[in-house]
């Protein structure tokens, strides 16, 4: 559900914000802008400051320095509650009160002074939309994890917020519940087109839901751009690792013909798109899922083919991770069915192929 960035002015903006605990700076961000009707994912490893940034934007944490601008105007202490009433936040834990599902879902509307009729109408609509209408009178403390998170999401959506903050709302759920709820969220976000900030460390969630991605490492924004840009052209080794480019091989550019570089890697030459100059030391990144394995060297459009010996096979669910020694280490991710059909065994020699466009080359620092 990629939404192309519009040329609108930002709804919400963080400017020169820092958050300092004691002597430790946990967040140092020059600028983040949220444009209307867009889903922005804040991604990064644990402890990178994702939640801190999201809490600052949601006006739930006052930054040590800097300001948050709503519709271009800085939000001061006096207007904090009024500004917050234009947002809704869903945390990783459902954080429901010890009362009925209905009372939980209506709480925000009651606090914001909605009429009884509107509260009832919207609550019925969203309880139904999240498939929890039959649970309305149940005590929230007796719900399952999935039901509780659906209640928490309904509590946010009834408010029809101008900006919705989702702080890893699926992270604490088991896989089937997560998949079902995630599917619903994809549809709902597409229908409502609500401006959304989504904190996640799950690459798939970010890729599926977000049009913009803000990547944080060590409290600083290390890359910001369209989802496609960040995931296919990471700006550094750290980002490449985070976005799933698991194969990282050191090499040196030996030729460059109109942006197609030949990189010498462990006595072999790998071809990839790069502007790096001849002689420059580089790192070559390849996603395991972009590597194809075969028993014989076949003629395809892929320009990189290497024979390698299987050193290990690691089944992970429906997939198998195949570790190869091609003169340099390589990990491929294939389906269990393919592994069975190729009768892959440790010690066996196979051919690994990948396209020029599948690899990403970054100059070494």
């Amino acid at each position, binding site marked *: 559900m990629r939404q192309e960035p519009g040329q609108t002015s930002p709804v919400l903006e963080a400017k020169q914000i820092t958050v300092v605990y004691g002597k430790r700076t946990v967040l140092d961000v020059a600028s983040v802008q949220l444009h209307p009707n867009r889903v922005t994912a804040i991604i990064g490893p644990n402890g990178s400051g994702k939640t801190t940034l999201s809490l600052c934007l949601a006006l739930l944490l006052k930054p040590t320095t800097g300001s948050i601008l709503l519709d271009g105007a800085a939000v001061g202490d006096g207007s904090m509650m009024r500004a917050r009433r234009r947002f809704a*936040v869903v945390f990783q834990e459902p954080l429901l009160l010890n009362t009925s599902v209905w009372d939980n879902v209506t709480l925000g509307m009651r606090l914001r002074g909605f009429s009884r009729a509107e509260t009832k109408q919207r609550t019925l609509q969203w309880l139904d939309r999240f498939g929890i209408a039959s649970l309305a009178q149940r005590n929230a403390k007796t719900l399952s994890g999935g039901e509780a998170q659906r209640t928490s999401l309904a509590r946010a959506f009834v408010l029809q917020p101008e900006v919705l903050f989702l702080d890893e709302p699926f992270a604490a759920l088991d896989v089937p519940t997560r998949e079902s709820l995630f599917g619903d969220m994809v549809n709902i976000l597409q229908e409502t087109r609500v401006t959304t900030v989504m904190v996640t460390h799950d690459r798939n969630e970010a890729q599926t839901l977000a049009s913009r991605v803000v990547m944080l490492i060590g409290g600083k924004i290390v890359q910001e751009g369209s989802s496609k840009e960040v995931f296919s052209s990471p700006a550094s080794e750290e980002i490449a690792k985070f976005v799933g480019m698991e194969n990282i091989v050191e090499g040196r550019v030996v030729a460059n013909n109109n942006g197609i570089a030949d990189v010498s890697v462990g006595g072999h030459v790998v071809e990839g798109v790069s502007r790096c100059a001849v002689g420059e030391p580089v790192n070559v990144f390849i996603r395991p899922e972009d590597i194809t394995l075969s028993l014989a060297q076949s003629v395809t459009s892929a320009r990189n083919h290497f024979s390698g010996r299987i050193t290990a096979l690691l089944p992970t669910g429906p997939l198998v991770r195949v570790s190869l020694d091609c003169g340099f280490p390589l990990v491929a991710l294939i389906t269990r069915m393919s592994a069975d059909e190729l009768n892959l065994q440790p010690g066996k020699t196979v051919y690994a192929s990948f396209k020029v466009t599948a690899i990403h080359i970054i100059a070494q620092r």
Partner: protein
Amino acid sequence: MGMILDGITQAFWLLVHGDRNVLRVATLSLLVSGSATMLSLGVGIPAGSALALKRFPGRTILVSLINTGMGAPPVVVGLIITMFLWRTGPLGATHLLFTPSAMVAAQFVIALPIVSGFTMATIQQLDPKLRLQILSLGASEPQTVWLLLKEARLPLLAAVMAGFGAVISEVGASMMVGANIKGQTQVMTTAIVDATSRGQFDLAIAFSVILLVLVYLVNLILTVIQQRSRAR
């Protein structure tokens, strides 16, 4: 053994016949301790909430003072209140010493750290993000505190029980600031001391039984409320 049985029998008759002195002492005990508990809830719950939710200079010292106060000996509290209310003391002009009001003041000082300490611990046990969640729904700061207290209502009832239990059963402070004047400031605990020192075991046992039954009934009511809320 005979003396104890005699005492219990006579206590039973005193209770059955509704002895006026016994009833007056029991009523005053309830009034003094009930008022002190209510006052301590009025001050202690907001104070405990503020200590749990706010960060300010001197907070740690205040928390450690409250923790110390939770175990403060009632006689020491009695001494301090007596000195304040003494004719030449800072509040001597109020002429409150040796009145039920002085006893309420002393018991309030005993119950306050207990109620504040329990409230603080109770709120701190809630998920810290719950406060943020409530604020994000559009609540003001006072609304947020109210909702957090409602969420912590079950353990907060324990604060009420602990506060009331501490003051209804204390004797040192009541004796010092009330002087155990019969018909005026005598409460059950001081009456038990007085009757025992005179060898009137029947009376002492009668007061003891009433005291135990009263404490039990108050705690029974609070426990029923607590468990009913839990079952809902």
